[in-house]
């Protein structure tokens, strides 16, 4: 009998093989993909469902909201017409708010994640590779950024930004708020990743393969991009996959505090804000975004863990 043939496999293939066997990983990947699809096909869902997130159904159609603006039907006005109920006060459709809200959250979080990761990677590698004074200065900057009370600072800085770009008579444009949110989240997000990568680079810098490259006359750019970076993809990918849900919740928290996305753009955080204002009369309105965000974040965190396990099976959690 011949021994089974050895097959050459790339690290990517190995990772995929290990990932496929991880049931939790697959399940959470399915949930994450479901959320992504909902975000992408929100207009299609809206067309099939026959409603949009902006129309004030409760105010336009009598018999949906009572005199105080709360849904007449029990459980937040859930019915065959309004699957998840009606928003108290304005009377918008909760299901559509949720579906379009994913778009807002994901768009802001994805852009901020990409920027944060890029900046964190560059600064972390520079600090670790350059060492000496550069490393010291970057280290102090990282310390300072990490000591900043970021939530408080973002809340405080929002009116300042608006004062610069918007004259007092105008409404704040939506794009400005979105850009400010992305910039702020990025500003406070990169430091952790930079510190982590600096440590990795520092331990790798003295390894033989880097030394060999240096001896053969490779330029610093070549060493960074061709020698170090390929070894750093795993921690970078893991960190990015954990960063995304963290940024989604940060954005929601800022909206909850009143400095997130502005009306009428649907946003989960603002649903929380409204939900906590009226929870004594209509708890249902709070439960839908609450459960949706919980499921989304859990799925993403589990996916991050599974990706880490697949890349590095020896690593203990």
């Amino acid at each position, binding site marked *: 009998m011949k021994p089974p043939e050895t097959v050459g496999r790339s690290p990517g293939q190995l990772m995929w093989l290990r990932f496929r066997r991880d049931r939790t990983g697959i399940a959470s990947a399915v949930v994450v993909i479901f959320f992504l699809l909902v975000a992408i096909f929100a207009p299609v869902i809206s067309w099939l469902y026959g409603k949009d997130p902006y129309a004030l159904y409760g105010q336009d159609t009598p018999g949906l909201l009572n005199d105080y603006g709360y849904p007449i039907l029990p459980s937040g006005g859930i019915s065959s017409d309004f699957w998840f109920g009606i928003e108290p006060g304005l009377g918008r459709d909760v299901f559509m708010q949720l579906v379009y809200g994913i778009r807002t959250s994901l768009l802001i979080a994805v852009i901020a994640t990409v920027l944060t990761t890029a900046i964190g990677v560059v600064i972390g590698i520079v600090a670790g590779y350059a060492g000496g004074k550069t490393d010291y200065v970057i280290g102090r900057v990282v310390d300072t950024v990490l000591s900043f009370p970021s939530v408080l600072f973002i*809340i405080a800085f929002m009116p300042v930004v608006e004062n610069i770009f918007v004259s007092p008579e105008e409404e704040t444009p939506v794009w400005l708020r979105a850009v400010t949110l992305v910039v702020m989240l990025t500003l406070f997000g990169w430091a952790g990743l930079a510190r982590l990568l600096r440590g990795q680079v520092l331990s790798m810098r003295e390894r033989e393969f880097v030394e060999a490259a240096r001896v053969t006359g490779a330029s610093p750019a070549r060493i960074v991009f061709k020698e170090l970076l390929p070894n750093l993809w795993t921690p970078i990918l893991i960190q990015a996959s954990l960063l995304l849900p963290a940024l989604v919740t940060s954005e929601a928290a800022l909206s909850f505090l009143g400095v997130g996305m502005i009306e009428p753009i649907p946003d989960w955080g603002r649903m929380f804000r409204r939900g*906590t204002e009226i*929870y004594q009369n209509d708890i249902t309105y709070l439960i839908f975004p609450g459960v949706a965000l919980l499921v989304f974040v859990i799925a993403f965190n589990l996916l991050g863990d599974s990706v880490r396990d697949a890349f590095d099976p020896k690593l203990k959690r």
Partner: protein
Amino acid sequence: MLRFITRRTFGAVVTLVIIAAVTFFLFFAVPADPARLACGKVCPPELLEQARHNLGLDQPLFAQFVSWLSGIFVGRDYEGLGHCSAPCLGYSFVNKAPVLGTILDRLPLTISLTIGAAVIFFIFGVATGIIAALRQGKALDKIASVSSLIGASVQIYFVGTLALYFLVYQNHILRQPKYVPFTENPLSWAAGLLLPWIVLALIFTANYTRMTRSTMVEQLGEDYVRTARAKGMSARSVVMRFALRGTLTPIVTILGIDLGALIGGAIITETTFGLQGVGQLSIRAVTSSDLPMLMATVLVAAGAIVVFNIIVDIMYAFIDPRVRLS
């Protein structure tokens, strides 16, 4: 040890001054009119002029920062408003009083909220973690890892509000959160903050259980633990005197990070439970464009984070003597 503490304290002061400077220049140096910000959107010209003068805006920017900074150490006089004595963090034109008094009024609440919760989840988490490690019971371990995942993913404004709804409004099991100073009545103090403490503990405990368990299991396999056992030391002493010491090092680091996050995120906790602490104060400062108050709250929050970092480092040095030497 003393040198270690001094060095860390000096570094912390430098960090704080940098944070103060960054905050100051961002708020006061942007091309918008800070006096208008301080005065609010509808502002009569004579009030605007007064605000500009009171903020010292007729002076160069750097001089403004220096006088603000020196106010912290030697106090400061505000023309027509009165004296602001030694640790002067600024003068609130909205409250017509130095900001420090207002902050000191609110600080005990925020500290009680944070430290109280931290004590609960730290003790509870470490204790269950030790039990889990000694029993090596799979059930407790599974529960801990699932609940730490949920704890890390859940939002305080969601669980907190649900708890308020079901425990306070529907069933009257707990009281509406309310702050009573500890010195006034310790029992009412604890009763008033019980609900936020429980919610915070629900979110944080499981992570400590899981971390303690895994580190403890690792420590119990170490050579020095085996040696202690071999020379006939009782199991209890081995765990309490040796294994626990090694276990606490990483746990304390996480505690420091969590405490910083809790204080920085106190705004969210306080908003959720309707408590009037420093977090709420900062939100009100934003809505009323009370710049000096805002500066001071940013600084106090940053100060808390930095101070907790130092405390963690010092505890670290006590737990692990090797740290002191490096």
